[in-house]
């Protein structure tokens, strides 16, 4: 079904996810290659967000949700770990930018430390803030008002602040759940450029229902349909020569 990637960072084994009785993921076997951008795409309701939320155990935060199967992050089964430890290694960026409105921009970047009860020396903290904001290409825009609240920033800036917040704790894996769905085209392009730049430093999994976005940013693409993994492979291959007719139908816009 897929050609083996050189080095995998995350691997799922017969992963099933449920809301109450409803089976949303029906046994997913997927390997995410390290230091690459992997897109998960599919029509709405196919379970792509659920799959992503399994990778940092956020799925279980919803009442009535549970999972079966195995997810290995660098060989360790994260479903048997404490979710808190998982989330320190796996960062997440949400659909809607969600900077904490009670914290300044500076505090927002450091939220991953503060919320985890980690105390930083001042120089350390300043270094992390600057580095993370630079990685998120936000530093030049906000460096003069780091101690103001982030709520006055534009939607795109807020989303990049959330990316900086996720990067600040040096995650092994960054999950992005349709990170541009609430943004205008210009802000979307900046986030997409950022994603391509970031893959040097961090593995990214991005959920999108926008096939052209997957084409622009992803090295690998997984196509999910009705809770099943239909096809997974290098983006170019999957786009030019889909093996499954359903993938082809989706790509040509027959559904979704």
């Amino acid at each position, binding site marked *: 079904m897929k050609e083996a990637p050189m080095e995998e960072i995350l691997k799922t084994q017969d992963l099933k996810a449920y809301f109450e009785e409803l089976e949303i993921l029906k046994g997913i076997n997927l390997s995410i290659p390290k230091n690459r951008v992997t897109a998960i795409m599919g029509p709405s309701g196919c379970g792509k967000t659920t799959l992503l939320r399994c990778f940092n155990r956020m799925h279980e935060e919803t009442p009535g949700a549970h999972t079966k199967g195995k997810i290995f992050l660098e060989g360790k089964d994260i479903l048997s770990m*404490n979710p*808190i*430890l998982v989330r320190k290694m796996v960062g997440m960026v949400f659909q809607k930018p969600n900077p904490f409105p009670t914290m300044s921009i500076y505090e927002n970047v450091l939220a991953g430390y503060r919320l*985890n*009860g*980690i*105390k*930083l*020396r001042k120089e*350390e903290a300043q270094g992390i803030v600057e580095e993370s904001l630079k990685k998120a290409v936000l530093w030049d825009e906000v460096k003069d008002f780091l101690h103001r609240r982030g709520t006055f920033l534009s939607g795109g800036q807020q989303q990049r602040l959330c990316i900086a917040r996720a990067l600040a704790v040096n995650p092994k894996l960054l999950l992005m759940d349709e990170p541009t769905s609430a943004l205008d085209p210009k802000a979307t392009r900046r986030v997409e450029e950022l994603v391509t730049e970031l893959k040097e430093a961090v593995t990214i999994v991005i959920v999108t229902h926008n096939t052209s976005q997957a084409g622009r940013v992803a090295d690998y693409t997984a196509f999910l349909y009705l809770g099943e993994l239909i096809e997974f492979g290098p983006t170019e291959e999957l786009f030019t020569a889909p093996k499954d007719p359903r993938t082809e139908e989706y790509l040509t816009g027959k559904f979704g």
Partner: protein
Amino acid sequence: MKEQGIALRLWKDRVASLVIFALALIPLIPLFLILFQLFSKGASSLSLHFLTSLPRPPGEAGGGVVNAILGSILLVAMASILAVPTGVLAGIYLSEFYDRLLPNMVRTAADLLQGTPSIVIGIMACAWVVRPLHHFSALAGSAALAIIMLPVIVRTTEEVLVLVPKEIREGALALGVPRWRMILQVVLPTGLVGVATGILLSMARVAGETAPLLFTAFGNPFLSWKPTEPIDALPLVIFNYATSPYADWWRQAWAASLVLILLVLFLNTTARLAARKMGGR
């Protein structure tokens, strides 16, 4: 970089959960104690005799509170007659007519009245009704209760009616229905359950009010139907009996409290059930 161990953080989290559980459950202890004592102490003294006879002089055992039960009912009924039409129509004014200054002043006044201690409202009713008539009266008592009910009814009516969709109003107006009919026959019925809930809740509240009755309705050991005469009420009886030196009256205070709480809970639960039904629709 100094990091707290995960074990410590999880331990803190568990302690916090336990503390929050405890903080939420401890306030229920007095509630259960009050209800338990009301039922255990009140039920033993509750009898047909208690419900149907008049009080006896102090020191003499027996007697009942029929005057207070009927008095409470009469007071709440009269207060409702005064407050319901006024409150509903004033609420309609706030939701349906767009004057410039007056509505906000009325809203502020209603909020102000709602926050006014009931004892202060008792003084007002005393000044407005008792003084001109030169004696305490059921009318003064129900006026005081009506002033307490009024702001609740006004604000609930307004809140419920502004939620009635514009389409419903326009649909009625498009049929050539005059505005007052549109309001009374289309808008008000749409929000009726909500308005009724507000009315019942305000009735439940004033049925238990004591302070504003102290120097308006005053109390009366005999049966009375006249609005211009003093009248008794369950809360007044409870207060007078509980603070009296007679053990038999203490017993009767518990029984009267049981009657009162059943009355209040009946009104209150009816209102809340109605509200829930509306919410489910």
